[in-house]
């Protein structure tokens, strides 16, 4: 029998596609131990540095415990406690005025990882709130992977392979611009299984990454040259007869056009554009064309953070198809979740006719800039760290009449807000989590701290104040989750059943995704040539384009700011959670300040030594950083962890996908975080 004080949940960091299992012990309403769940079928008792330190979130003395309103000017740091009723009355008054004044879209909800780690909040409860009260909804995933998603939607192919299957069956694994060792350490056992079986593990990244340390081959192309690389490899494959062209023509639309497009590219020219040897492209072509299952890891949205990201992902997906890896056990692409919750609960049918501002950074920037947003509810997110070009954003947010932040802690954005609402932790809520093939319960282990309440609790009370009585029609959260589980993928699952299965439950999804070669395009075929893209004004075939702010297209800017800023990921951060993890002692100790990776040659040329304090700057801002000399960076590039707001003082608001595209496709609109030029100078300590 299970001891009454033992509960199973998952890690609160929103890794992708699988969260590690947690086992927690509670006594007298207090967390006394937190460790990996040894029964969890994916993580098997292991936790990374963030997971091991996550008990410190629960025990933190810095948690917000009651609603507060600012007691002085915004950002002055003075707060006074208020009741939930007063907070919700204040918000409801403005939202009602906006709605009754004919501009409901001036009410905006932005929800991000702190909220969407609870999968029903992401997929059901928050969209349901926005639809029922008629507010604009900005999904926290737009900075992460929306351009990758757009490329997948245009191609009709989402990958969806399970890393467990990759570990067991892949003959080779290509981490294309992915560093799972730094961002999702729980995928490493499966990566090593491929290597231990003698398979090739490839990392494609200009930097020497942690995953490169585990790889059998590391390819370092020029930053942003991925379309050249994928198309060049495809050209080699087609020239050398490594492609079953008849099968491609059967599976896809426009294969002939793609074939001609790629064959027009001289592989030697592609290699030169990538700053690689032709033999590197030939070796990669041999690997993709060898006929045994090759898995391409595109788990994170790294490519989507490039100006040309949609095309990069399109080019890679076409290469995956060309090698015959689609619908093959151990092949395909590792990506995201395939488990759907009950879709009818989103109340999409009751969304008002007024078009909301699309979930696209261009649209968001324009809405904030034009004063179109009156009331902004930020739920589990931190725009003033994670959105680009923070000095611009800061000025925009200062003009929004009411900014409300719902979080565990007073983060960068909350400090500039009018109201803060205390959130419950993941151990204080009953919730659900899914991977690409499994469902897990996040059991409630503890009562809410102080007056903290979960998002659906206050959304219900806010909705009622706006005349919506049926936002939360369930008697309790368990009934709500059971209703969410009423979907084809979750058949047979219930909270009660999941509670008996700390190892997780299999979802009803295809064992080998896309084995039937049915794709999510209007024709049901794989889009080598995307007619849909052409209609939307995007290149129908994967086409390289240099970024407007980069080494090649902006020589004038390059003369002043000769370093390319790379947004990195390290194990010690999950974006800017917990105020850049400064409120989690173990993580703060391991990375106490923003650490800039600099090639020794670039450091020496500027008189900036290893360990020095320095300023990184461009026309958008200046960031103070600690310098680490490392040959892991390519000369001419500097790398900063994306968990620090210092990074986004320097990134630009440029976003390649137009809002009109997002309005049609529901995806696209990632800012081009990876295209920023900077300069570095020493500062006095």
């Amino acid at each position, binding site marked *: 029998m*299970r001891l009454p004080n033992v509960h199973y949940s998952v890690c609160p960091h929103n890794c992708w596609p699988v969260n590690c299992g947690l086992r927690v012990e509670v006594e007298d309403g207090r967390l006394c131990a937190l460790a*990996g769940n040894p029964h969890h079928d994916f993580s098997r*008792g292991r936790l*990374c*540095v963030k997971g091991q330190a996550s008990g410190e979130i629960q025990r933190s003395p810095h948690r917000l415990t009651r609603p507060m309103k600012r007691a002085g000017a915004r950002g002055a740091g003075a707060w006074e406690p208020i009741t939930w009723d007063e907070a919700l009355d204040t918000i409801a008054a403005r939202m009602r005025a906006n709605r009754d004044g004919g501009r409901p879209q001036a009410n905006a909800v932005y929800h991000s990882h702190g909220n969407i780690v609870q999968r029903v909040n992401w997929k059901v409860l928050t969209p349901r709130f926005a639809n029922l009260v008629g507010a604009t909804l900005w999904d926290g995933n737009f900075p992460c992977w929306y351009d990758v998603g757009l490329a997948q939607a245009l191609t009709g192919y989402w990958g969806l392979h399970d890393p467990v299957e990759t570990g067991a069956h892949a003959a080779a694994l290509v981490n294309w611009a992915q560093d799972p060792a730094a961002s999702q350490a729980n995928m490493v056992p499966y990566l090593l299984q491929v290597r231990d079986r003698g398979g090739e593990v490839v990392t494609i990244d200009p930097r*020497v990454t942690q995953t490169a340390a585990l790889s059998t081959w590391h390819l370092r192309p020029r930053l942003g040259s991925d379309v050249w690389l994928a198309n060049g490899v495809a050209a080699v494959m087609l020239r050398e007869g490594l492609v079953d062209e008849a099968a491609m023509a059967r599976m896809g639309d426009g294969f002939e056009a793609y074939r001609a497009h790629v064959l027009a590219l001289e592989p030697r020219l592609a290699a030169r554009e990538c700053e690689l040897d032709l033999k590197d492209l030939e070796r990669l072509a041999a690997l993709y064309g060898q006929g045994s299952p090759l898995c391409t890891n595109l788990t994170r949205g790294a490519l989507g953070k490039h100006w040309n990201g949609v095309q990069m992902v399109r080019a890679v997906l076409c290469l995956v198809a060309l090698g015959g890896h689609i619908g093959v056990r151990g092949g395909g692409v590792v990506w995201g979740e395939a488990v759907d919750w009950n879709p009818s609960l989103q109340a999409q049918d009751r969304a008002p006719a007024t078009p909301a501002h699309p979930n696209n950074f261009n649209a968001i920037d324009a809405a904030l800039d034009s004063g179109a947003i009156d009331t902004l509810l930020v739920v589990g997110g931190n725009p003033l760290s994670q959105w680009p070009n923070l000095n611009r954003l800061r000025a925009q947010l200062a003009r929004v009449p009411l900014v409300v932040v719902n979080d565990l802690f007073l983060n960068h954005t909350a400090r500039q807000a009018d109201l803060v609402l205390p959130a419950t932790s993941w151990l204080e809520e009953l919730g659900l989590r899914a991977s690409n093939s499994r469902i897990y319960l996040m059991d409630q282990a503890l009562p809410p701290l102080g007056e903290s309440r979960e998002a659906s609790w206050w959304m219900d009370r806010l909705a009622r104040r706006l005349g919506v009585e049926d936002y939360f029609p369930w008697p309790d959260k368990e009934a709500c989750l059971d209703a969410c589980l009423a979907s084809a993928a979750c058949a047979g699952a219930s909270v009660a059943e999941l509670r008996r299965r700390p190892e997780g439950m299999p979802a009803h999804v295809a064992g080998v995704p896309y084995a039937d070669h049915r794709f999510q395009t209007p024709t049901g075929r794989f889009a080598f040539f995307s007619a849909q893209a052409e209609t939307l004004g995007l290149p129908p075939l994967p086409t390289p384009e240099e970024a407007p702010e980069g080494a090649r297209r902006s020589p004038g800017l390059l003369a002043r700011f000769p370093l390319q800023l790379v947004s990195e990921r390290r194990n010690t951060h999950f974006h800017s959670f917990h105020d850049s993890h400064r409120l989690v*002692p*173990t993580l*703060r100790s*391991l990375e106490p300040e923003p650490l800039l990776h600099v090639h020794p040659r670039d450091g020496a040329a500027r008189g900036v030594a290893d360990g020095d304090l320095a300023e990184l700057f461009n026309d958008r801002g200046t960031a103070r950083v600690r310098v680490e000399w490392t040959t892991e960076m390519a000369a001419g590039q500097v790398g900063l962890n994306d968990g620090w707001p210092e990074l986004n003082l320097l990134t630009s608001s440029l976003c390649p996908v137009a809002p009109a595209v997002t309005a049609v496709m529901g995806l696209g609109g990632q800012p081009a975080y990876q295209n920023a030029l900077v300069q570095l100078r020493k500062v006095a300590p």
Partner: protein
Amino acid sequence: MRLGFSFDPDRCFGCLGCVAACANANGTPEDLFWRRVHKLPPEPGSSRTVYLSMACNHCDAAPCAQACPAGALTKRPDGVVQHHPEACIGCRCCQMACPYEAPQWDAARGVISKCGLCHDRLDQGREPACVETCFAGALRLLRLEDGAAGGGTEAAGLIHLPEAGPMLRIASGPPGAFPPALPLPWERP
């Protein structure tokens, strides 16, 4: 039986999970880590950073225990070098004697603190926290049988330091299978 750590640099990827697992399991204070991960960035022309995860090596000759005037560091029969904070006088001689900077100064309590190989977990048949959490299987518990073949200080892969006899094996072992999930704690009907 002599216990220590086995470390495979071909599998470590510097995630720091072992560092935090140690802090989580042992409740060490902020900024004080019994285990640390060192990084050697790639040589010119190389594409590989090498990581080294290190804590106390539970040396055979235990220079720390020899240097301790208070008897606060002792060697267990299984080889674990155990620290007894109640006997520690805070002289920090052990820190000067240790070739690996394993003993850490706990300024708040005025005593030394160090890795005890999770001996309480070992006594319950569990692995040290750092070993248990390692996603790569890079860090493992080293068990050398006394008198058994390969059990001497010259055993393959052991760091050779005659005056200390560290129980740290740097070796690329056979590929370790990712251990399966533990059976469920209760029977399902």
